[in-house]
């Protein structure tokens, strides 16, 4: 799953660094993730994992690192089963 998240960040995150080389707990906003880019990342994650982020999860903290994104996706895919 981490590799999928990295691929999505690469395509939609418009980061100033290589998403493939980022530590899983690195701050994505420090790495150049803008608010608008985080929306595109969110929509791409929804498409890739067939999930829908509820309003309570549409927060900056959820998209602040690869590991926080992973935790959110795991919670939502677990809920779907």
């Amino acid at each position, binding site marked *: 799953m981490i590799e999928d998240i990295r691929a999505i960040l690469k395509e939609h995150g418009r980061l100033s660094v290589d998403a493939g080389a980022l530590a899983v707990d690195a701050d994505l906003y420090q790495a150049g993730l803008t*608010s*608008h880019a985080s*929306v*595109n990342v969110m*929509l791409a994650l929804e498409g890739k994992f067939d999930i829908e982020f509820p*309003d309570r999860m*549409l927060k*900056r903290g959820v998209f602040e690192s690869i590991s926080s994104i992973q935790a959110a996706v795991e919670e939502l895919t677990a809920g779907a089963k």
Partner: protein
Amino acid sequence: MATQYSSEELYQNLVRHKLIIPVGVPGAFGRGAVFEDVLARFNDVVTRLAKNDGAEVMAFPPVIDRQVFEKSEFLDSFPQLAGTVFSFMGNDAQHKELSQRMHDKKPWADLQSMTGVVLNPAACYPVYPSFTGTVPAEGRLVDMQNWVFRHEPSPEPTRMQAFRVREFVRVGTPDLVVDWRNMWLQRGLELLQSLGLPARSDVASDPFFGRGGRMLAASQKEQRLKFEVLIPVISEEKPTACCSFNYHQEHFGKIFEIYTPDGALAQTACLGFGMERVCMALFKTHGCVPSEWPKSVRDILWPA
């Protein structure tokens, strides 16, 4: 007795006292002489308050360069609010068809083409291209009153399609910009309270479009980038934003290549008084006849 709030009643009262003049389409009413006098007087009070701030005064028309509009990314955030100007650019035959279709009440929009201008979507947008380059160490401050268009037709009087904003824009280092914003947040609140208005300030978010917009709004609130001074005008629970403060961080600095002398991207913030909304808050709070307003309020707006 507690004040009762009603959008419809306020609209009727404003019309009855000739403060506003209905025109058919909602949110585009005219303004009467007394309304305009109150607006001008409030504008003067703001001018007096800011007179030692060293602002450069500028005025822009109600349209902006479409390329500036496109660069601003307004459509990424608020596609539902924008109004792009289209015009006829055809030949005689097409003109004939345009007239015919209009008289036949058939659609004619496809016979117009996009022009190079867009209705101004936010009071501060026209100024940013003029900051391109390096700003002085003390930053810059601009003072404007511009017409703004928002496509949100509504019978509710405080929600207009076109309105005036008295806007100040600060550009410079983060410290300069944030200190200035904080100074005005207090000043704006005190100004409106001094006019007898039950104003309070709160953190706020912009009406971003769609699901992505809910995320943008949450992020804006979490970062405390937008504040509003709110006054109950048509509702107690949903008070009306009469003054709003936006901290854009480096958004416009990046887009329009604005730098501080140390070579860093400049930051910007703006504040705007919704002029018609302030007037309506005054009419709602003190009544539709300014000569009957409390002396303390009249003394500020009509000083001897």
